[in-house]
């Protein structure tokens, strides 16, 4: 890569950073659905403790029975993710000196690494034009943006490892068959470390990468009729396996001793006919917003399928091994989309949909190859073909920016505005709870409009919280814990939060809440009072 590439990478970084931090630029309070709050609590708890968490019995008390009972070996308070990603949050908090913004900057930065790494990889393998044609659309990758906004942090983070991991394996194989033993080993070590890293981030990336790896190895094996391993290197291979297991040993009890909380509702496998489709979207769209899995939201139009087909055809008929890098991705995607057919998942499992975040990496890369290559078939001088390539590329990018770019901007700019995320008043409430409510006691938060918001209050207050309109007063509840002794929670405080309802002008709901508050006022004492939020304590 030359200075031109560094300028492009700088621009990619600056523009994508601007886009992906749009939800944070005017409002420094946290945003996401409840998953994001849950994940945030782990890193936040590490900073609070001043040490990293043990595997067992060390999760944030604020989580209570939330997702508990998931793991047979680690118990209801065993950690549910390998610790590395959560520790990253803590490092950001410690070094950034703030609780929220540094973590969210880290989340945004790691989410945009996919487009930057695809630029690097495509530049190395296919040249400047395909690289830029891949990276710019990926800045606006709608599926990644949605996952980022919703808060599926581990998944989004893990998938950005795919381009570089795939590239390191490709380079290891290319070096092996090119008789460059030192390079082969270097890339293989890097591949192992990246595979371990992606596994520690989220296992779905590993599932994809293992399948991808087998396919790309098979392609090379078919091409060279020789296995890509040397008996004389057995010590190196053994050392790699040793380092891999040293780094990842704790992920096995975390990932593989769950009680099957992930199974879909429909146990039937896919019909054979679905093998002839690219992906079989169930009627419920995997339980997600349909926009996530629709082709039209992730690509500028259905006409790009033609471009994709041209790209695949060009790759199939091209010489050399570089095509294996992209074609293996397509085959691996097809296989993970069809996991239900092989009995490895259920047709409506949302985890199948999450693999769709990987798809734009390969689709846009193949489209980029097609656009850069097509003018070669025009009967023009080489210079004329080059001009035609750039003209096509500019036209394609103009369409992408005017459709995907505008969509990404609108989505990120409008996300979690106003009261759709935790407000300063609610943040203040969380801080008060943290400082004034005994650690063993929980808070019933009434009036706050959405499930993710009171979950955020719960996490930020470092206390277990609920939202129960049936139990106004001191009460105890038992969390649903599968296969383990139940977790008791005692709620002594009730918060009446009128701030959201007042902002929405919901007079009738305010009146209902006031009636509940007047009941509470007879039996409890007021301990916190602002203009729109009051907290009562029951004895």
């Amino acid at each position: 890569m030359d200075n031109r590439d560094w300028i492009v990478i700088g621009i990619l970084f600056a523009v994508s950073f601007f886009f992906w931090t749009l939800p944070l630029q005017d409002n420094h309070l946290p945003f996401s659905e409840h998953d994001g709050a849950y994940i945030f609590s782990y890193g936040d708890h590490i900073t609070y403790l001043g040490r990293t968490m043990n595997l067992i019995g060390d999760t944030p008390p604020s989580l209570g029975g939330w997702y508990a009972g998931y793991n047979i070996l680690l118990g209801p308070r065993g950690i549910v993710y390998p610790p590395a990603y959560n520790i990253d949050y803590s490092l950001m908090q410690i070094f950034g000196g703030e609780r929220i913004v540094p973590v969210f900057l880290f989340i945004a930065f790691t989410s945009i690494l996919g487009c930057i790494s695809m630029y690097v990889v495509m530049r190395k393998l296919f040249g400047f034009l395909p690289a830029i044609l891949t990276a710019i659309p990926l800045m606006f990758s709608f599926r990644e943006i949605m996952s980022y906004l919703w808060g599926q942090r581990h998944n989004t983070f893990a998938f950005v490892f795919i381009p570089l991991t795939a590239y390191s394996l490709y380079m290891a194989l290319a070096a092996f068959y090119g008789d460059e033993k030192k390079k082969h080993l270097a890339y293989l070590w890097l591949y192992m470390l990246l595979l371990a890293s992606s596994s520690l981030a989220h296992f779905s990336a590993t599932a994809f990468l293992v399948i991808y790896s087998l396919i790309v190895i098979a392609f090379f094996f078919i091409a060279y009729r020789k296995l890509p391993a040397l008996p004389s290197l057995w010590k190196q291979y053994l050392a790699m396996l040793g380092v891999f297991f040293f780094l990842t040993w704790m992920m096995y009890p975390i990932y593989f001793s769950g009680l099957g909380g992930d199974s879909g509702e429909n146990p039937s496998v896919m019909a054979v006919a679905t093998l002839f489709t690219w992906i079989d979207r169930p009627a419920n769209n995997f339980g997600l917003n349909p926009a996530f899995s629709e082709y039209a939201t992730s690509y500028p139009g259905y006409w790009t399928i033609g471009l994709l087909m041209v790209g695949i055809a060009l790759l199939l008929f091209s010489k050399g091994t570089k095509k294996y890098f992209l074609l293996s991705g397509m085959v691996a995607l097809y296989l993970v989309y069809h996991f239900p057919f092989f009995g490895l998942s259920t047709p409506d499992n949302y985890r199948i949909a999450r693999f769709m975040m990987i798809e734009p990496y390969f689709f846009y890369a193949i489209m980029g190859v097609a656009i850069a290559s097509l003018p070669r078939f025009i009967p023009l001088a080489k210079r004329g073909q080059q001009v035609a390539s750039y003209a096509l590329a500019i036209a394609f990018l103009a369409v992408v920016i005017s459709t995907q770019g505008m969509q990404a901007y609108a989505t990120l700019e409008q996300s979690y505005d106003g009261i759709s995320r935790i407000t300063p008043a609610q943040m203040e409430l969380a801080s008060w709870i943290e400082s004034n409510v005994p650690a063993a006691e929980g808070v019933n938060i009434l009036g706050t409009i959405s499930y993710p918001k009171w979950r955020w209050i719960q996490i930020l207050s470092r206390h277990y919280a609920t939202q129960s309109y049936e139990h106004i007063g001191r009460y105890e509840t038992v969390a649903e814990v599968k296969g383990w002794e139940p977790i008791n929670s005692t709620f002594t405080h009730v918060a009446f939060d009128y701030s959201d309802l007042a902002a929405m002008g919901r007079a009738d709901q305010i009146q209902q809440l006031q009636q509940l508050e007047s009941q509470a006022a007879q039996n409890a004492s007021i301990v916190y009072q602002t203009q729109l939020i009051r907290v009562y304590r029951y004895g």
Partner: protein
Amino acid sequence: MADNLISQLKMNRISIIAGIFFFLLVPSFFFGLTGAKAFIAIFLFFLLPFFLLFSHLPIERDETLFFSLFIGLVVYSQLLWTIDRLFHNIYLSIAVLSVALYGIGIFLVYRKRTTGS
């Protein structure tokens, strides 16, 4: 040592400084000092120690940069967790791990410069 790294990256000193400055400038433009500190942390914890460690590998230096960042993002914290089983103090563990990683990395760069291997 710095000259060696710069020459390995095939970029001149001004480009390197401009690159790092830009990497810190963009977040600080939008988020002030907090933005700069967050990206200094990313640079110091995740990128630089692994860049030093991998600088002796027979691969292109620009590749080393990206491999270091990605691997550092997880492996640094995973090693930190492992060390913290011993110390139960994240600050002490950060110090010990950073000294170890930077120490080994600088040694490898020094050895490469002096012996070429």
